[in-house]
């Protein structure tokens, strides 16, 4: 009897593992498609049937970073031979790179990527620092109506960004913050702040008060004990909060779409805007997408163990 049940159990276990693997493959296939499209030659990106095996190339990445125009006549063999390899790839595709004097003209992508980086990093830093201090206050001092305040802080996150964007847009137009880095940094800080206060409060609550009290008795000021005792204890919490704020700011679309147009535009509204009405070069879009996912994927992978506590506002303890 026992043998039968255990072998039956082993069978269900094996079937479950097989199911997991199959589902994982199905689940990840769209991601694989993005990744593989980025390395396809343009002619193979939209074939029927879809191309799965091909010779990978990085032409799409070269295209992503440069401005190009169609060749009107075949390129001079001498010019072709003298060109560096990356320019030859472009010539092969029937296009030539635009130049300002001797320098290759860069596309807008690096600029948008840089905007994303500046805005996401700065706003994450400000939101997490302010959130840590606020959470410390909430956690250590009694204040009337604490729960109401916390709910009020969270309420800034309840509306669809589109809704908030209407009054913000009108106000920003008056004060001239539309399409500026500062404007987006303020916005992202504001809506990440609620999240970071809630998260950090969960972490702060778990740091024993006794440590600080001992320090205070030993003659530390409140500030000293905060920086020397509390902060080092809260490092994991700060890391987890940073990941979440960074993911949100990095991927934010609606605000960026409305508030920025050229100077301060980030990558999320920029990448889809590349899809015009004409012939879409999906390999370039895939390359842009792939590069765009990388920072957040790496960042998240490094701090993956903290994600869970983040999404539950500390309801789950490790």
């Amino acid at each position, binding site marked *: 009897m026992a043998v039968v049940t255990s072998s039956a159990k082993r069978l269900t*276990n094996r079937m*479950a*593992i097989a*199911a*997991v*693997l199959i*589902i*994982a493959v199905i*689940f*990840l296939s*769209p*991601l694989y*498609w*993005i990744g593989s*499209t980025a390395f396809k030659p343009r002619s193979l990106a*939209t*074939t*029927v*049937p*879809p191309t799965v095996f091909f010779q990978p190339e990085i032409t799409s990445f070269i295209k992503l970073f440069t401005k190009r125009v169609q060749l009107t006549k075949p390129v001079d063999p001498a010019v072709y031979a003298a060109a560096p390899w990356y320019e030859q790839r472009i010539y092969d595709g029937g296009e030539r790179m635009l130049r300002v004097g001797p320098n290759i003209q860069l596309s807008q992508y690096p600029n948008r990527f840089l905007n994303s980086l500046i805005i996401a990093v700065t706003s994450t830093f400000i939101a997490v620092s302010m959130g840590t201090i606020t959470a410390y206050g909430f956690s250590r001092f009694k204040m009337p109506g604490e729960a109401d305040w916390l709910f009020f802080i969270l*309420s800034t996150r*309840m*509306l*669809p*960004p*589109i*809704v908030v*964007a*209407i*009054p913000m*847009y*009108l106000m920003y137009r008056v004060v001239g913050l539309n399409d500026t880095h500062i404007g987006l940094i303020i916005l992202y800080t504001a809506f990440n702040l609620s999240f970071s206060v809630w998260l950090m409060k969960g972490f702060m609550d778990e740091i024993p008060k006794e440590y600080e009290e001992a320090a205070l008795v030993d003659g530390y000021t409140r500030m000293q004990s905060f920086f020397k005792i509390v902060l080092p204890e809260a490092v994991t919490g700060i890391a987890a909060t940073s990941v979440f704020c960074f993911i949100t700011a*990095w*991927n*934010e*679309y*609606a605000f960026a779409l*409305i508030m920025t147009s050229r100077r301060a535009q980030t990558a*999320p*509204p920029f*990448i*889809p805007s590349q*899809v015009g009405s004409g012939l879409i070069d*999906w390999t370039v*879009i*895939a390359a842009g*997408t792939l590069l*765009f*996912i990388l920072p*957040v*994927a790496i960042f998240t992978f490094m701090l*993956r163990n903290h*994600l*869970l506590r983040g*999404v*539950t*506002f*500390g*309801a*789950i303890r490790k």
Partner: protein
Amino acid sequence: MNDPVNFVGLANYRDLLNDPHIWSNFWITAKYVIVSVSGQMVVGFGLALLLNRKIPAKGLITTLLMLPMMMSAAVVGLFWRLLYDPSWGPLNYVLGLGNFAWLSNADAALYAVALTDIWMWAPFVMLLSLAGLSAVPQHLYEAAAIDRAGTWYTFSRITLPLVAPLLLIALIFRTMEAFKTFDIAYILSTQPTTELVSIKLYKFAFQEWQTGKSCALAYIVLILVLAITNIYVKYLNQAKER
């Protein structure tokens, strides 16, 4: 631009609530929320149940499965447009659907958007469920096995009640977020049948420039989301006290 301010009282709200189109936007949103959230719950919880055992490279698989939810919804939407493409999209090829136009078919478009959303957010439910499942004390299962409890009995009397609080958190969180969906639907499809409330809001405000009306609609949305959030916070606190 500098016209004198004209106070209209509740006229904007009256116009909105009398507008049958707005009601259809709310219906579309409700349908979308139900389809995509229930899909996420089933897929996510199912995956968690399957994953909750000894599996080679479990950490790696879990992390890989979580990749979709780290991506920008705008980028996800854009890429699913490639997958859904009627003439050369891989999805139609794999499913053998010929030239089925997912995103320009009035009936299918909303479900296509929901499917993308399920793909993106089922890992979130999976993550929460996995945490809940791993917290179920092993001795309960052993006791059930000694009592010769059936699989279904064990599942419905031990697993489900203990994971329920976390499932609820996931459910309410996802409902809140699905209600606010803008980017995925906006990028994927331009069909009137996928016009969610937030897309309608965007059109009111930034295409028709009806600021008053859009702000009134925003308040209606706020009240609805506030109600959902209140439930969320209540259950979160209960789960914390447990």
